């Protein structure tokens, strides 16, 4: 509990950001929370289970379009967000059954093309998605400031949910099983872990909140188009963030997301011409010198204190 309290305090402090009344800061905060959702989600499949998923953009775009289409049809906004979560989760479950038997690079490539396929489908299915012209969402009849606050708080709540999900998984039998799968999948199967089931659950968990983030994003910017929400970069950024902060830890992806956002913003502001190159070099250097991420700096030499830890943690999940 002593470790949960500071986190809750930080979230509460961040939630008070609108008091500063700066819409630029709020926009950054919303982006940061969205990045955190994506990095934390990727962490479940990529960090815990060790499956390098590039499917984040697919879940994000699917969520964005599900939310946008439903809202366009007159569905109440929060309900459309929930529906987007469910759509992404269902899609991930089916996709996971199809591609999670692949390993390493093969899995990465298979997950990467999913977003491309969805991009093509959305672009050609003009009657439903508006095709390449994109899709406009209903305008909210509240002030610009109120909108900024609403979406900031909604995204922050979603990020907190995703963080809680990570924490629960990490302390549950599921998280223990996923870490075993990452270390040695064959041996995991031999000691009786249902590897297929665990991997599919992890993949679903890596999708559900990203779908929600996509829908929130659509409502926030009022206009989406296929190349925007199915961008490959949307799949790559969460991986970089998680690695920056410390993949496979609970707080690492959040730290990585904030760090990434700050770097992106600073580099972009100061080196407009070459910002992509500068950011890339910075990230390569950081990952090269911090193989365990930022959190890896603090726990380099720390061994599990209690020898019966895995059993205790497995039991905590019952």
């Amino acid at each position: 509990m002593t470790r949960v309290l500071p986190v809750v305090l930080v979230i509460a402090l961040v939630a008070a950001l609108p008091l500063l009344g700066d819409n630029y800061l709020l926009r950054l905060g919303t982006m940061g929370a969205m990045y955190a959702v994506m990095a934390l989600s990727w962490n479940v499949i990529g960090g815990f289970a060790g499956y390098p998923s590039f499917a984040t953009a697919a879940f994000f775009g699917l969520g964005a379009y599900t939310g946008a289409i439903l809202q366009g049809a007159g569905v109440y906004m929060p309900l459309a967000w929930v529906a987007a979560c469910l759509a992404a989760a269902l899609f991930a479950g089916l996709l996971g059954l199809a591609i999670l038997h692949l390993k390493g690079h093969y899995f990465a490539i298979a997950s990467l093309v999913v977003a491309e396929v969805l991009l093509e489908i959305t672009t050609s299915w003009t009657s439903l998605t508006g095709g390449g012209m994109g899709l406009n969402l209903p305008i909210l009849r509240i002030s610009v400031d109120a909108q900024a606050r609403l979406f900031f708080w909604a995204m922050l709540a979603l990020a907190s949910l995703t963080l809680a999900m990570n924490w629960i998984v990490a302390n549950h039998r599921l998280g223990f099983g996923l870490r075993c799968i990452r270390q040695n999948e064959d041996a995991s199967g031999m000691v009786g872990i249902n590897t297929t089931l665990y991997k599919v659950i992890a993949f679903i968990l890596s999708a559900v909140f990203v779908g929600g983030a996509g829908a929130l994003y659509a409502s926030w910017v009022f206009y989406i188009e296929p190349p925007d929400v199915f961008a490959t970069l949307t799949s790559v950024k969460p991986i970089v963030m998680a690695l920056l902060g410390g993949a496979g830890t609970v707080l690492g992806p959040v730290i990585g997301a904030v760090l990434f956002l700050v770097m992106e913003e600073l580099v972009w502001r100061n080196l407009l011409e070459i910002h992509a190159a500068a950011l890339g070099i910075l990230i390569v250097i950081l990952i090269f010198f911090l193989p365990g991420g930022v959190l890896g700096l603090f726990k380099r030499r720390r061994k599990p204190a209690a020898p019966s830890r895995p059993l205790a943690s497995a039991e905590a999940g019952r």
Partner: protein
Amino acid sequence: MAKPLLSVAGLEAGYGDIQVLWGVDLEVAEGDIVCLVGSNGAGKTTLLKTISGLVKPSAGSVRFAGEELAGSGPGAILGAGIAQVPEGRRLFRTMSVRDNLLMGAYLRKPSDPSVGEDLDRVMQMFPRLAERARQDAGTLSGGEQQMCAIGRGIMSRPKLLMIDELSLGLAPRAVELLSESLLEINRAGTTVLLIEQDVLTALEIASRGYVLDRGRVLMSGPSAVLAEAPEVREAYIGA
């Protein structure tokens, strides 16, 4: 001969389009040590993996203690009482030795006092593991890793322990030690099915043997008979 604990009949299996096992029949009597010998690519490992459920059979049956197991998942088969010690040990390298052993009892409730008893028993059997209980499994020597893998196998309280390549890459001294432990495990009531490259060692430990060749059983019988059979001597011992 006692009643068979495991009986495999007409088992066929493979990977994708490649069929490896072409109708394997095999019986393991309760309390016995049976070894499986054969050259590389004969299908020994595939047979073990098919019995333990990691590979799905395309035909045939695997009966274990009166129960049909063919087609069940690895978890169910382990629960029925068959544990596998895989080739190359396959430990969880960055987990401690103790945690690796506890993983063998994954299907039992952690609070079950029998888990602690079994852990003590394994540590007694392999004092080296007790000394290194807190170390990462990846830092163990080859022989110690094999002890850990066997220990993990018996942590699930199996009726049948299947070991893939007991001696591969190990020092002769380690092989001797492990063979003794295996006999001890067997005396305590666990039936053993063993794959072994070193045919002489295998036939020494086991009471019965099967020779596998290109996915079929070439011959079978008591170890002493197999060790004298000209086909075996010529093909695998070189004399």
